[in-house]
Structure formats: C-alpha cells, structure tokens
C-alpha cells in the first residue's frame, strides 16, 4: 500500500528512517548544532532540547552484522542492542555529542556500561528510572531529571532555566498534538496514510530538529487532509510492541491486506498520547509526572498493567480495530510478559490477537507473511 501525495514531505520522512543522519540533521550539525542520543522514550527529551541540542533516538539502522558487539554481549541478548552497539563500536555514532540512557531493561542498561568503556562520546548519563508509577516515584524522577539537567547544562556550559524548559515543553507538546492529529486521520474508514508510512513519520520525529519537524508535519497533515483514503484493505490492525523503527516490517503486514491503523509502540502512540502539563507549578515536576504517571506506560512499569490494557482496549474501540498483532524482539522479557498478559486480557473478550517474535533486522519475511495471512483468515477476512 502506498499513499499518493502532492508534496515530497512523506518521502523526506521515509528517507529519514533509512539512515542515521538525515539531511535535516546533517544541516543542523553543519551549522554547529549538537545532538544527544537517547536510548529510550523515557528520557526527558525536553531537557535536551532546552539545552540547545537535538534529541536523537538510538537505532540500529544500517547495521548489517554484530561482530563487534558480540564480543561484548551474548546471543541471549536482543538484536536491537547488538546492532546499535555494533554501530557505536564502528564509529557510526560519532556524530553524537552525548548519549543518555535510563535503566530501561536488562539489555539496554548494559549498553550504557559498554558504551562508557569503549566508545568515546563526550557526555554519557544514565537516569535511574523507577519501576512504579505512584507519587514517590514521580518525586524520585523529578530529582533525577533535575540532576540530568544540571549535569548536561554544566557539560555544555548552558544554564537550562525554567523558561527554556517551558519553551521546550511547548515545542514537544506541539509535536505530540500534531502527531495525534495524524492518528486522528487514521480513525477514518478510509485512512489517508498507512501504518508503515505513519511509523516513518514518527521515527523521523526522533531524528531531526524539532522545529523543522513540526513544520514538515504540519505540511504533511495539510496534504493528507486532501488525500484519497485507503479502502482496499481486509482488516484494521493495531500493532503492539517495543522498539520497532523499520516501516518495512509493517509493509509486510499491510501487503497482506492488514492495514495498521493504530499502535502501542516505543516509536508510536505511547510517546505522544498525552501532553506534558503546561500549567504545572514547575517544569521539572511537570516532566516527571508526565514520564512516570501520565503517559501510557511501558511493560517495565509495575502496577500499571490494567491502565495499559485499558489503553489498548480504548484504541481498539476508537480506531475500529479488527485484530491486534503484538510483536516483540526475541529475548525481550518485558514484552514476553506483556504479550502474555494482554493475550489473556483479550482472550477474555474473545478479540482476535496474535503474538509474533522478530529480530531487529527484517528477516523471515516469508514466515511473517504466512502468519499474518493465517491471522486475517482466522478473522474471516
């Protein structure tokens, strides 16, 4: 499936997913701009923007092997960390001026340890991210964000004032609002954009200067409002999972007739379904509350499964979803558990649901195609 549009914006976004450094980011670098890597969507990107840097979500795009990383980690570690670390070890991330982590999972948190030891990035920082979502955790993360802000500011020689933070929050909220508008269009019976294309739009947002991205996204939304919608699909699919940054994976699903109309992904709706509260008393608390308590959570957050499950069920209703595909990277414990729990939840309602394992690089396309076909047939589509 492919959307036909007047402008080239969509292609620009799509190209941004095919390499690490896209033209917009290169332009930023050429002008002396700084870029800070983020290994997880729980890193408060607003602080990075307020420091005058571009936050860049870490990927393994372009990697073809993991020889160097395999000397550091093992085969029971997920292929995302093996490919992204391998790129780092090969110097492909030398454009970064720093990199930030949270203790997202057992795999990613160890990349911090290897990176610190082996890769010469001027600034590295790990925020201790709580695993619960209640008030003491909001307070803890407020302090973590504050420490991160101070350390980054000191390193860059920038005073990250409240004013700068509020400005960054407004800018990122604007991104979220625009992205939600994009998702709103997908509720239509004839969505004007495919799931693969949407993922490209979302990934691009994590890899270019935010102001420019927002402008491009506005242009795209304008274009889409006049575009012809897709009606040639067999079923409307919700895609759920962790780190998926390759639109070609969704292409395979959509080529079988399963139009992905919404998601709960690390590069998808979970990052933008809510806004940071612009009326809060101070920006750091607002950020902490957003990341810990307000945004749809990741499975690593204990005590929040019911809310996550409700989020999925709301999506199913609002986007008129026919079936849910849950994908996970092999060896990911967080998503193993979440897939199991969500499967049980949906089983109770009799809703079509399938679990798929995958590797970070797009492999096993034939198998994926067969499983999606079977799933659609099982749904009577």
């Amino acid at each position, binding site marked *: 499936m492919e959307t036909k549009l007047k402008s080239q914006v969509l292609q620009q976004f799509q190209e941004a997913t095919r390499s690490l450094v896209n033209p917009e980011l290169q332009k930023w670098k050429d002008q002396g701009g700084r870029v800070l890597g983020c290994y997880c969507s729980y890193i408060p990107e607003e602080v990075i923007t307020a420091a005058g840097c571009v936050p860049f979500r870490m990927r393994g795009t372009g990697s073809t092997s993991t020889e160097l990383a395999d*000397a*550091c*980690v*093992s*085969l*029971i*570690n997920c292929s995302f*960390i093996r490919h992204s670390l391998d790129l780092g070890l090969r110097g492909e991330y030398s454009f970064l001026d720093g990199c930030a982590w949270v*203790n997202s*999972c*057992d*795999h990613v*948190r*160890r*990349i*911090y*340890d*290897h990176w610190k*030891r082996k890769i010469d990035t001027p600034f590295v920082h*790990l925020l*201790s*991210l*709580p*695993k*619960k979502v209640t008030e*003491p*955790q909001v307070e*803890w993360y407020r*302090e973590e964000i504050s420490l991160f802000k101070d350390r980054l500011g000191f390193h860059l020689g920038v005073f990250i004032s409240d004013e700068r933070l509020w400005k960054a929050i407004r800018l990122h909220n604007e991104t979220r609002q625009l992205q939600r508008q994009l998702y709103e269009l997908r509720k239509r019976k004839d969505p004007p954009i495919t799931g693969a294309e949407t993922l490209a739009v979302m990934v691009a947002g994590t890899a270019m200067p935010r102001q420019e991205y927002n402008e491009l996204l506005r242009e795209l939304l304008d274009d889409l409002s006049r575009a012809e919608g897709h009606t040639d699909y067999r079923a409307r699919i919700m895609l759920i999972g962790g780190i998926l940054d390759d639109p070609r994976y969704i292409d395979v699903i959509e080529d079988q007739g399963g139009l992905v109309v919404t998601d709960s992904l690390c590069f998808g709706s979970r990052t933008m379904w809510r806004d940071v509260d612009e009326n809060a008393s101070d920006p750091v608390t607002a950020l902490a509350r957003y990341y810990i308590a307000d945004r749809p959570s990741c*499975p*690593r957050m*204990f*005590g929040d*499964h*019911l809310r996550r499950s409700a989020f999925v069920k709301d999506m199913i209703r609002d986007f008129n979803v026919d079936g849910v595909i849950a994908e996970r990277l*092999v*060896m*990911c*414990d*967080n998503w*193993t*558990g*979440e*897939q*199991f*729990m969500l*499967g*049980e*939840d949906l089983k109770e309602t009799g809703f079509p649901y399938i679990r798929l394992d995958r590797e970070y690089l797009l492999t096993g396309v034939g198998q994926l195609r067969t499983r999606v076909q079977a799933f659609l047939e099982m749904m009577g589509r």
Partner: protein
Amino acid sequence: MVRQYKYEPHLFRRYKEERDYFSFLSGILAQDPDPISQLSREITDITVERYDQIMQYAEEGKPFIAGYFCAAPEIYEAMDLPWYMIMATPFLAASAPYLLGDIDGAEAMGLGTDWCTACRLSLYYIEAELTPKPWALIGLIHPCDAGNLLHQSVARNQKWRDVPIFATDPPYFEDQRSIDYFAGELRRMVAFLEEHTGHKLDLDRLREVCIESNKQYELWAEYAQLRRAVPCPHGWGIGGPQCFAAVQVFQTGKPRGTQWLRNLLANTEQRVKEGVGTIPNEKIRYFWFDLLPFGWVFEFLPWLEEEWGAVMVMEMFGFTPYTPIDIRNEDTIFKGLAKRNLYDSPMVRQARGPADYFAADIVRVVKDYNIDCVIWPGHMGHKDGSASTGIMREICNELGVPYIHIGLDLFDKRYTTPDECKDKVSKFFSAMGLG
C-alpha cells in the same frame, strides 16, 4: 483492609509434597555422622519447619505472606509474618522428579521459552493451583525484567486477583539518596503489610531481630573469610547457599540460625587449622559467578570435583559485604535495612545496578580467594549478566585469570545438557592448562 482469608487445602498439595521431600532428606542426612551432613540436616530441618509453620498458619486462619529475601525479611520476622517465596520450588526442590514436567506445563501455558525458567515455573504453579495463596504478596521487580513481569502477571492472574501486592521500587545507583528512597519504600511496605494482615510492626521487636541478624551477618562474614584458605575447607555442598537460607530466609534474626552459623564456623576453623580441604587433592579453585544449577546440581558440580579436582571456592550467594544495621533509632534501622537489601542481597547486589558494582566483586574475589578461573554459567534468564560477558572477560584478562561463559539453564538440564557443560568446561580447563 485486612483480607478475609479462605483456607483452600487443595492449594497445599504440592507444598506438602515438598515438605515431605525435605523431611525425607533430613532423615537420610540424620543417619550420616559426618559434621557437614549434620550442618546440612539442620538446614533441611528448618526448611521443613517453615513449611509446617505456613501450613499451620493457613489452617488456623493466621496471616502469612509471600515475600523475598531482598525485601527486608527482618521486617516480616518482627511482624510475626511467616513467609515463603513463590519462586521457592525451582530453588529448593529443583531436584524433585516433577520439575521437568512442570517446565513443560509452563510452556503449554504459552509463556515464552526465553523467559527465565524460574519465573515461568512460578506463574505455572499459581495457574495450576500448586502453590499456597498468601494473605498478601511482596513482589520483586528487581534485579531482572523477568521477575518484574512475573509479579505483574501474578497480579493480573485470575486466581490471585484478590491477593494484595506491593513491591519495593529499586533505585539504580548506590548513594545516600538511593538509601533514603529505598528506606521510604520499606516503610510503605510496612504500611501495606499492616493494612492487609492486621499485624503491627513493633520497633523494639524489629531492633531485637536486627541485633540478632547483625550477629548472623558477622558470623557469615567470618565464614566467608575462612573460605580463602588453601585448600578450601568447603566446596559447593555447603557454604553461601546455606548461609543465605539461614540468614536471609528461614532463620532471619533468630538465635537458632545464629547457632547454626557458629557450628558452621567451628567446623570450618577446625578444617582450616588441620589443612583439610573439601576434596583430598584440590587442583583448581573456581569462582562460580551465579546461582548454583539447582535443577541438576548433582549431575555437574560433584563431577567437577571428582574429574578435575575443581573446587567451588566462592559463588554469588556467598560473597556479600554483610552490612551491619545501626540499631540506634527507627531511621537508622530502616536505612540499614535499605542498604542491606539493596547492596548485599545475592543477585540484587550483582545484577541490579551498573556493571562497575559486580566488576569490583570479581576483582575482590579473584584476588582474595586465590581463584584460578572464573565461570560465568550464563543462565538463560540472566540477560543483564550475559549482556556483561565482555566486561567480565576483560576484567579477568586484566587479572590474568581465565574466564568461561557456558550458557545454560540453571533449572532445565535440557537447555544445555550436563554432558555438554562437562565437555565445554573440560576443553576450557585443558586449553588453559588448569587441573
């Protein structure tokens, strides 16, 4: 609100079998006059007693809980709340004949096979109604992802939805702010337990428990020092795991546990004075940097001693800093408990935070214990450890000590069979000129 507990005898079916298994083991050990067997018998005896106590409390409608060694068992003891671990079966009865069948049962539930076997089994036991249902559950959300998701899955499980659950949130680094925060989490845990069991925490009683527990840690530390002797006075059969069982699980803050440690120490001192090792001809002193392969321990570790003269001088349960708790006031007690549970508890100590923490332990153990090689078993569930294998190897290279990463399942011997492990280790020993 205190939960209305309903005693359901059928949930204790497997529990009774396990109790009988340990009782049987105690009976066998009682017939062996060897002092090590007698020390082991005492551990199996106290294990049986805990099983009996839980069953008795259940029958009488008195509160008991499920909890963890790294969530302040001193508090459970002070609150008179007998506890058990929902993960106990894989750890305690892994040599029982039903283990492999249970693992298959877990697989049939649709639990991912790359998820830690101990976690899969625990969820299976709940679903299959093979584990007691507690008044309240203290969950574990560190040090690994698998444990976190296990407890989330337990919380949503249809059969356990009425069991209140609380988990202490672990900070990642070791500093005063983290201790203060975790102490707050422990206080919130106390409030949770008080609310759901009706038992109140008495500070004086907690102080008493901590005083006794401090003695236990001191004796454990002394014991750990004695294992530095060449030849090593004890091997894999007695040591860290039994100290852990006494100090952190079954006899926390109880004089009987303290006496057991004194007996252990006396035996060890005597052996060191007499120069008696665990085997007559110690050739290789290895550091086993993980839990023991509980599911098939008898098929592998004795072989290492017999075939290669290889002695497990230290392992993950045995090396902790044994932090004493300052018992001056409530604040110091809670902060001491926070520190002990975050920094000293086995697995949590090594796996929770950044690699620098376990790296320092490897250096310390290799240097202090005359270690000839480090074995990282690489349990399939320990993803963070396996993601650190390169760091472990580099540390060992710097120390000039050989390192091997096996890659196995501590509970399921079909993952990497004992024969495959023997083959790998034999090749490693030969290549490194050990033994």
